[in-house]
């Protein structure tokens, strides 16, 4: 294995996050009853014509901008002709000669992966294999869902890097609001082109294409399997045949789908039903201005501006929703470090324990942190309050009444006075101890214990100080 280099290029399809499909006004929605989300256009009825959803073009431009692509000023749609029952028109509207985006790159830890292009096309329907008596059925709901296809140069050298690339790509698309990349729903799918060559050799080996990869894990496994298979073939004196292979995740192996000789000639030509799309530089700049910060940029900001550690910043920028939550929380309380602490511990632990979503609003979390800061409630009580908000959806205003700030000031004063009077030994300790703050905290603890944590800690401390000084 060490004697070979692995050369990998990826083709990644992602369903775009538009409201409507790409050439008709049907909803772009997953999970509808079969064939209920269709119209003459997306089931390819005679006479129906495509009308481009400009939003899809905008999203592809945005995707390209996050990866430094060049945006073509004229994009052309072409027909890719082939017969398959899930393809209603017997052609897929795609792009060949003038895609929306050209070039670009994604930086990995150890290398830069160059992109060849990103183009826009339509998704096909879905075959549903039913019982033998019924046979195969077709659900056209997915037909016409906008897809962006990203093609890399063969710059990836291992299964690990492929997964790293996909992770970064997915992050970008989600952060930019381009796609949701829900792999379990087929929202992101990957084809892998892979070849091997003798270490250091300039000449590329014959490649095979692996289709049907629906999770990062299967990408990882398929690459390792295929590289090993190719090396074995070569080591045994054989040659690699250019072919398309299908990954079988259940059995952990790939099988040949079709050889090059029998592959389709797609007979691409410009779709005469569609106008070429002019993309002005002004439009591109406007879209660029709409882009939020990408994970790397956010990370730099968190570390630089907010003084968070790299570890914290990494976690907070991994998922768009989490970083958005963090950003929103610090709008309400200007203490990024403390907010980060709370999110990394209290919030994430609860998510790990099975919560599907964050069940406290950024505003409430900010209030909780602020209550602790102002010592209106103790940290322990604040955590208890968080639990009750998370689990029962209780109102923070009501919880504050229960947990803090509602012990009457004169009552508190009397309580402190009594505690000090009843604990002469502690008072003496306080005066002689090397660490008087420890003893001071003990007094505070006593107050909290007596009030079951409801006392305003700041006030309590003020009174303790006052009475101790009188002793």
């Amino acid at each position, binding site marked *: 294995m060490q004697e070979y280099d692995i050369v990998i290029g990826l083709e990644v399809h992602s369903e775009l996050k538009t409201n409507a499909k790409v050439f008709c006004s049907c909803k772009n929605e997953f999970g509808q009853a079969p064939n209920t989300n269709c119209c003459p256009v997306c089931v390819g009825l*005679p006479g*129906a*014509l495509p009308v481009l959803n400009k939003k899809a073009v905008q999203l592809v431009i945005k995707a390209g901008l996050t990866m430094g692509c060049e945006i073509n000023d004229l994009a052309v749609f072409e*027909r890719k*002709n082939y*017969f398959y029952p899930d393809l209603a028109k017997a052609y897929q509207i795609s792009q060949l000669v003038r895609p929306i985006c050209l070039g670009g790159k994604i930086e990995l830890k150890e290398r830069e992966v160059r992109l060849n292009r990103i183009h826009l096309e339509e998704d096909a329907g879905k075959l549903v294999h039913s019982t033998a008596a019924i046979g195969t059925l077709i659900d056209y709901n997915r037909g016409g869902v906008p897809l962006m296809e990203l093609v890399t140069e063969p710059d990836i050298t291992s299964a690990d890097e492929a997964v790293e690339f996909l992770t970064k790509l997915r992050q970008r698309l989600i952060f930019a609001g381009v796609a949701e990349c829900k792999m379990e729903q087929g929202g992101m799918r990957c084809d892998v082109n892979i070849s091997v060559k003798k270490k250091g050799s300039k000449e590329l080996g014959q490649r095979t294409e692996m289709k049907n990869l629906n999770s990062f894990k299967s990408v990882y496994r398929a690459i390792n399997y295929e590289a090993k298979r190719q090396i074995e073939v070569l080591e045994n004196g054989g040659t690699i045949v250019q072919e398309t292979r299908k990954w079988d995740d259940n059995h952990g192996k790939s099988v040949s789908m079709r050889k090059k000789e029998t592959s389709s000639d797609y007979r691409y*030509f410009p779709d005469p039903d569609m106008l070429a799309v002019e993309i002005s530089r002004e439009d591109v700049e406007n879209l660029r201005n709409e882009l939020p910060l990408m994970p790397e940029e956010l990370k730099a900001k968190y570390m630089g501006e907010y003084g968070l550690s790299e570890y914290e910043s990494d976690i907070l920028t991994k998922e768009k929703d989490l970083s958005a939550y963090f950003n929103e929380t610090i709008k309400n309380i200007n203490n990024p470090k403390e907010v980060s602490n709370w999110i990394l511990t209290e919030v994430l632990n609860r998510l790990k324990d099975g919560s599907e979503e964050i069940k406290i609003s950024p505003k409430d979390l900010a209030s909780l942190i602020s209550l602790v800061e102002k010592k209106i409630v103790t940290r322990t009580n604040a955590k208890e309050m968080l639990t009750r908000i998370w689990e029962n959806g209780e109102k923070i205003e009501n919880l504050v009444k229960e947990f803090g700030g509602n012990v009457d000031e004169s009552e508190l004063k009397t309580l402190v006075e009594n505690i000090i009077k009843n604990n002469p030994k502690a008072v003496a300790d306080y005066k002689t101890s090397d660490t008087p703050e420890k003893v001071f905290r003990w007094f505070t603890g006593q107050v909290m214990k007596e009030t079951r944590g409801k006392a305003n800690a700041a006030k309590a401390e003020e009174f303790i100080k006052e009475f101790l000084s009188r002793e």
Partner: protein
Amino acid sequence: MKIDELSLIDLAKAISEQKITSYDATKFYIEKCEERKDLNAILEIFDDALDKAKEMDEKIKNGFKGKLAGVPVVIKDNILYKGKKASCGSRFLENYVAQYNSTVVQKMLDAGAVIFARANMDEFAMGSSTETSYYGITKNALDPTRVPGGSSGGSASAVGAGLTPVALGTDTGGSIRQPSSYNGVVGIKPTYGRVSRYGVIAFASSIEQVGPITKNVKDNAYMLEVLVGGSEHDETSLKTDVPSYLSQIKGSVKGLRIGVLKEIEEAVAGFEVEKSYRDTLKMLKENGATLVDVSIKDFKLTLPCYYIIAPAEATSNLGRFDGVKYSRRSPDAKDVDEIYFKSRSEGFGKEVKRRIMLGNFVLSSGYFDAYYNKAKKLQQKLINESKEAFKKCDCFVLPTTAGVAFKLGAKSGDPVAMYKEDLFTIMANILGTPAISVPFGKGENGLPLGIQIVADRLNEGVVYNVADFIESKGGDYARV
């Protein structure tokens, strides 16, 4: 008032003024269709036509106004009318029922039309004689031993024989104009994009248009006004304002510059139509028009250009007829490959198969640049040449066909001879310009000949004005 003596415009007026009911007019034309079943121009008379006519009469009584209020109309078999069959002259779509209205049908319905029948056509509009229809050949309205032309042969024969005041056709390479010429009627192919193609079963998307076939030029202009306008369902439909065409018919050609194409002068020599063509030019000159010599150097290449672009688009457009969804599935198909192979083998006729193969060839890898790309470049060159020519003149005048309608079966064994039928008409499709055919003069057995007027894009007004003038000087022959 005799219904069949009324022009479309007069009939529309009489119905809207309640001098004639839509019911009577529709019934009259339905009976005409029944009488002339021998022509096989009409494939189906819609069974709800008289009910619709009655409804329209009620609406008109209640104040409905519309350019076609209560007017009976025939559509070609490739135009979708919701709930009605649209078989495109093909076995493949034998029982296909339209699921939605085409834009042109919707516009006509909005204008109050009673669409009462669908007309025969060459299968998938591929042909110039209406002999390739799965539903039998259509005969010429004026001589049943001759072809009506095609592919809109059913529509033109129906108008020629007085079975309807107006019919819609589609024109991809001359399919409205050539049959109009053969049946002594008027047919226009509008500017590409002027009429929406939404809901019209596609043959060659980048060059085809829907247009009206009528008994005279003014009727034609009146009808086109109903059909034009951008559609939100069709990117290629033009969103520019729709002018009045009738108001541009001035009854004079004084001062107009008529382009005489050098290449036509050469091509027309010895053809039956030559005299009509020269008489037209002479007549226009005598009436104050100026004849200007112009040239489209590559005119002769329009035909090969067309026979690359059209089959290429057709092969892709017809892919959806695969037996999987709505089209006829071979009863013998056992698996998905057989559904494709057997359904398409049985469902398509010979001419359609020929063009599918031709289209696949010119698009296939290794040949794409040599054929399709070259044809597209040539098309652009022709457009540029025409723009130069249109700087010097307001329109071209040229024949529609080489001669009168040919005999049934005369060319059906010779595809190239059949393709040459479109020699004079294809140019307007390649250029995307409007072109009309109007009868002028007679040929063999007193059968009509047609003259074409071609103007620059969106200049339908000029086309109609000149055509109307030619018609007015053509004697009564224009009216059958």
